[in-house]
Every structure is written in structure tokens, then in C-alpha cells.
């Protein structure tokens, strides 16, 4: 059992950035030069994606042609399963993404492979049981309040879904060998119909905002939204929110910052009020240079990414803050 397979993800014909991050994750898990890293392209036109994955650290590209242009969990599961059976890799890396949510667990369950998701650290360590080095993967637990190390006793092939933005994409280019792999025919039980861009009629562009004041569940009720709209206007910020506020319809979906909302790409100052800091929200804002978190719960996860923190009553802080931005103040 050797070799590492990296399953590259693509959407609507474009390679997704996570594919390259996984190449770096594979480097971190390599046990020596014999552990070859192969990037697997499963697509209707896999050759089109090849130039994008010929990056440093890639020894081989495996192309697998399937009929579906867009996400097809049955085809992916079948192709990766067949590839594992043929090559018996020690490790298979998949992005921890919405697509992998749709097939990785089925792949692992059917094959009986070692399996963990949302992994942000991996490497081989000595095992007390056998004395042999075994793979150890680290993930979060209890809402990211603890780290959990998992291992995979007795598993020859391990499938890991790796958290995005954890490993830096590799630098440099490579000239990997290219292998074609023929996947067994599969009858897909799902079919793709269309992609829908969510528009809300609110013309705000969170990705362009430099100063965002964002509100979360801590504001309590819908009637309080207006206070923070006024505060944001007074301090010159664009009002954003976390998922529960958008789901409740208190603010339009276009204002939601996070994995399934918008990324605060241009933001320099992010003031999070009443946001506990779920991993999905952090994905959209943890890169911001200056984050200030205001929260009633001193144990909130948001304080671990914020530069400044205030533990206190949101409304009192909001009212007192506003007095500093009154005309003439």
C-alpha cells in the first residue's frame, strides 16, 4: 500500500482551488520519495484541467473520463472506488467541500476504508499498539472547542476530507506523467438540472466592502436589526450577518458572510457583534486584518480569530459606540 491520490474538484468546467491545497497536504503526509502523489481528474473533459494541476509536487496525473459535465456523486464514488481497488493507495485526499459531503462517506462506507472529514492536520506517528507508524489526522470537536486526533487501526487505505484554506497551494510547475484510467460504467441515479445564482434584490456587494459590521444570533430578535442598521450607517460600515440572521429573513442572503454566503475579500476591518464564530462563518472572514469581536459569551470561538475582543452586552456597547459617531462628536 503506497501512493497518495488527490481527488481534484472542479465546478462548471473550472478547477477549484482546494485541489492544489491537497497537493501540499499530500506532501505533508508523504513517507518518502516512493510515496508518489497522483492528482486524479474525473470529468467529461479531464484533459482540459491538466495544465492547472501540473504543479510542484505532482508526480502523476490520472485522468478518468465520465459522461457527466457537472457533479455526479454516483459517478465520482464509482470512479474513485475503482481507482482505489486498482492501485491500493495508502492515502486518498478529497476536499472537505459541499461536493465531497455528497459522496465521500458513501465511498468510505462501501469500501471500509479509514475515513475522517474536516481534517486540518495529518501525518504519520508511531503507534502504541503495533510499533508501526500509523496515520494520525486532526480535526475539531465540540464546535471546534477541542482538537481531536483520530487514527485508523488496521486500515490499509485511508480517505481524508481536508479542510479548505489549511494548506498553501504549492509553488512551481512540474511535468507529471499522465495515465488514463477507465472507470467502470455506472448508472447515475441523480441528474444535474441547473445552477442558480442567488439574487436578493439588495445590491450590496459584501466582497467589495472594506469595513463590515456584522451581526449574529446574539442580537436576539428581528426588532433589533434596525438598531444595528443605524449603527452601521453611523460608523460608515456595511452591515453584514451570520447565517441565522439571513435564514430567518431578517437581512437578505446577499449580506451573509461565510462558507455558503459571501467572502469578505476586500475587508480590512470586521466588527462581529453577537456572532459566536461557527467554522462556516469564520471561512468567510478570518483572513481580515483587523477583527473585533463583541460577544456576551467569553468562551465564544470568535475570540480565537479576533484581534480585539469585548465581552459584554451588545446593546450597551452599540449605544455607547454610536455616541462617538454622532455629528459633532
Amino acid at each position, binding site marked *: 500500500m503506497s501512493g497518495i491520490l488527490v481527488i481534484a474538484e472542479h465546478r462548471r468546467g473550472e478547477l477549484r482551488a482546494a485541489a492544489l491545497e491537497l497537493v501540499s497536504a499530500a506532501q505533508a503526509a508523504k513517507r518518502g520519495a516512493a510515496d508518489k502523489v497522483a492528482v486524479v481528474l474525473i470529468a467529461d473533459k479531464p484533459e482540459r484541467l491538466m495544465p492547472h494541476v501540473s504543479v510542484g509536487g505532482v508526480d502523476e496525473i490520472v485522468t478518468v473520463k465520465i459522461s457527466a459535465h457537472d457533479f455526479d456523486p454516483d459517478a465520482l464514488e464509482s470512479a474513485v472506488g475503482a481507482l482505489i481497488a486498482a492501485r491500493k493507495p495508502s492515502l486518498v485526499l478529497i476536499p472537505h467541500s459541499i461536493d465531497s459531503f455528497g459522496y465521500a462517506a458513501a465511498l468510505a462506507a462501501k469500501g471500509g476504508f479509514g*475515513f*475522517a472529514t474536516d481534517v486540518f492536520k495529518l501525518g504519520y506517528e508511531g503507534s502504541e499498539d503495533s510499533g508501526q507508524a500509523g496515520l494520525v489526522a486532526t480535526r475539531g470537536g465540540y464546535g471546534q*472547542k477541542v482538537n481531536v486526533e483520530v487514527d*485508523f487501526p488496521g486500515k490499509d487505505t485511508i480517505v481524508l476530507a481536508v479542510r479548505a484554506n489549511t494548506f498553501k497551494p504549492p509553488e512551481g510547475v512540474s511535468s507529471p506523467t499522465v495515465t488514463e484510467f477507465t472507470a467502470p460504467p455506472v448508472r447515475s*441515479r*441523480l441528474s444535474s438540472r441547473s445552477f442558480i445564482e442567488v439574487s436578493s434584490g439588495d445590491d450590496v456587494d459584501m466582497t467589495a466592502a*472594506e469595513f463590515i459590521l456584522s451581526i449574529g444570533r446574539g442580537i436576539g430578535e428581528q426588532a433589533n436589526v434596525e438598531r444595528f442598521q443605524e449603527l452601521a450607517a453611523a460608523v460608515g460600515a456595511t452591515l453584514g450577518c451570520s447565517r441565522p440572521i439571513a435564514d430567518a429573513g431578517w437581512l437578505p442572503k446577499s449580506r451573509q458572510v461565510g462558507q455558503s454566503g459571501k467572502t469578505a475579500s476586500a475587508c480590512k476591518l470586521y466588527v462581529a457583534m453577537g456572532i459566536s464564530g461557527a467554522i462556516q462563518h469564520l471561512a468567510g472572514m478570518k483572513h481580515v486584518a483587523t*477583527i473585533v469581536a463583541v460577544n456576551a459569551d467569553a468562551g465564544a470561538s470568535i475570540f*480565537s480569530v479576533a484581534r480585539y475582543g469585548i465581552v459584554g452586552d451588545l446593546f450597551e456597547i452599540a449605544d455607547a459606540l454610536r455616541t462617538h459617531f454622532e455629528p459633532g462628536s
Partner: protein
Amino acid sequence: MKLLVAVKQVAALDEDFEIRADGRDVEADFLIRDVNEWDDYSLEEALKIKEAAASPVEVVAVSVGPEDADEALRKCLAKGADRAIRVWDEAIEGSDSIAIARVLAAVARKESPQMLFAGVQSSDHAFASTGVATAAFLDWPHAAVVANLTYTPGGDTAVFRRELEGGVLHEMQIECPAVLTIQLGINTPRYASLRSIKQAAAKPIEVLSLQDLGIAAPDVGESGSLSRVRRMYIPDKGRAEMIEGDVEEQAARLAQIIKDAIGGAA
């Protein structure tokens, strides 16, 4: 016509907590139990389908867990689930999401529902894999992160939208029966009335053992799992510089940070 809804009694941590002596979990005394947030949405989706259906639909809630999972099931009954099933056996202790899925699949085989709903993930360990692994054991079609669903009970297919990164939706069609993992925001979960909570307390919860489901003990617990927890520890996280003082002082400092960061434009 039947819809099966998988629910989990999750655990959140108390503000202060300690790691268990064996280093592999948090001491149970520091765990605060509640129904997984995603599962509220799965149940609501099933109840909505039942209420809109022309013919009778039975909604069955199922949970794999010790006795304290009854609390989650009673909440489902109070909101309108017709029946509740809990599966437990000492051997299930230490199961990962895949071993739990094996149990859920056995319950689905016994109940033969037209659809099985599960949450996208659990708020405690967030493996995001139980539902899809259950489908694998059943050899059913599966879809994850469903944010919109069009389904008529008894239909051969359903149309759903899965929620992608960046807020884009992907509309797909799936053959039924299927397992769907339900995303937050797909609906607005109802609250149970005080009267229905009281009534639910008197309703029976069917308790099944591994033997009832024909599952061998080695197929669950650590031996039936695809991963094993080796160590749990409190990470050495970065911590914000805390702004102390009274509200006025804290607000003044925050105002200064804002004015500095945006170049005194205000």
C-alpha cells in the same frame, strides 16, 4: 407512506470543561445536551410534506443513543412526529458516524420509508457523513446539503437544490427512495406547544437493540468504525486582546480602533 428522520442528541461544552482521564473525550459532566440544530430542519421538512400530502404520511423519528436521546425524540413527537424509535446497546459506544449509519440503515430496512432525512452535519463533531453513509449501506441514491426540496410522497423522483459554496444553488433530480441531508434555512422549524410537549411525554418510544436489527456487535463500536479517537485536547488557540473596562471605556476604545482603521474618515 413513510418518512424516516434521523435525529441526534448532540453535546455542547460548558464554558469550563475538563478532558476525561483517558484523554479521549471530554468529561461527561461538562456536556450540555440538545437536539442537533440541523435535525430540527429535517423534521420540519418531513412534517411539511406530511401536511401537504393528499394521502396519509407517517413521520418516524429515529435516534441512535443511550436513554438521554429520548429527550430529542420527545421533542420530535411534540412537534408532530407520529412515532419515535431509539436504538441502543452498550456495544454501540465508541461508534463513529459510519458505524451509526450502519444502525440507521438497519432501521430503514425494517421501516421501509420512501425517504430518509438527516441533518447535513451534527453541531458537535461535524463529520457531515452519517446520512450519506446510511444511503451507502442501503444502496440508495443520496444527496447532501439540500436547501430546497420538491417532493410528492410516493413519487419516483424528487427535485432538490443543494447549497454550494458562495451561495450558488445547484438544482438536481434524484430517484426515490433516497437519503437527503438537510441544510439549515430550508424551512422555518416550528415550536412545540406546551400542550403537545405534555402529550409527547406520555407517548411511547420504541427501543430497539442490535439483536432486534440483526446487527452483530463487532459491526458497531470501535471495531465497526472507520476511525478511532486517539486523543482529545484543548488547542493552544490564539486569543484576542481583550478590551477591559466599563461599557464607556470599551466603546471608546472600539471607536478609536474604527477611526484608526478607516483612516479617520468618520
